[in-house]
């Protein structure tokens, strides 16, 4: 039940030597093993209009020391509209229109939820579409551990 993640970074002019980084297709595995991650939220979508933090993915304290990968993309076409992504009130960064992130996620405790805010949203900017997916393992729902 392999899920593969690949990143390709390219630039012909950011430096004198072209950038061409390709991770190849990396199979998402459980913590410390070669067993595939077998659970997912699927690709989900919300329309964000809250300027304060909203829980996108709630941390499960039992997830500590288990593998979890999170994909989030700001689907807005307005490059000025951004989504602030935080974990336990610590800002990870801002996803501007079109930006995405793919990170491992330690659910160290129930405070480590992934939260998002449409920080510069106003009633005239329109909602910010955000898509996200979680790939993970779970101690309560084992399938091939």
């Amino acid at each position: 039940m392999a899920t593969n993640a690949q990143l390709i970074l390219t630039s012909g002019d950011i430096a004198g030597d072209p950038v061409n980084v390709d991770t190849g297709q990396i199979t998402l595995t459980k913590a410390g093993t070669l067993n595939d991650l077998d659970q997912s939220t699927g690709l989900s979508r919300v329309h964000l209009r809250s300027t304060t933090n909203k829980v996108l993915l709630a941390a499960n304290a039992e997830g500590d020391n288990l593998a979890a990968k999170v994909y989030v993309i700001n689907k807005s076409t307005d490059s000025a509209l951004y989504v602030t992504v935080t974990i336990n009130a610590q800002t990870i960064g801002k996803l501007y229109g079109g930006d995405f992130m793919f990170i491992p996620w330690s659910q160290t405790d129930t405070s480590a939820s992934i939260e998002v805010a449409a920080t510069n949203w106003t009633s005239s900017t329109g909602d910010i579409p955000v898509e996200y997916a979680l790939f993970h393992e779970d101690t309560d729902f084992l399938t091939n551990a």
Partner: protein
Amino acid sequence: MATTTAQLILTSTDLVSDSLSVSAIATLTGAGNSTGLTLTGGLGRKKLASGHAQYTLFDGDAYANGAHKIYLKNTSTTASEYFTIEINSEQMGKLYAGDWAFFPWEANADTNDIKIDPSDDNMTLEYMLFIDE
């Protein structure tokens, strides 16, 4: 202005009944504008030889607040070896062997350092920072 793109491809034919095929391409630009990022630290490697102590990979004090982007990859081939990634002492996640991460970074405070903590000796992390001036 430089043009740098990041493409993500997520695929699975058997995780769920419907095949998964997600592709996203982003041009890396400055905060709130369409100007391509023009600076990079280049693709680097850091080997943490012994003691596997926490190491500051990017110092928040060294960069202005902006739409920086970070790429990280654990080059280990031993499944149990991981790097713990922290921002300002908050644990983001553990990057296991072969795993990579790509995320925005604000560097909005002197304490907003990106730190890595290898689980074992002699582990190597590949990294790249795209800098918003």
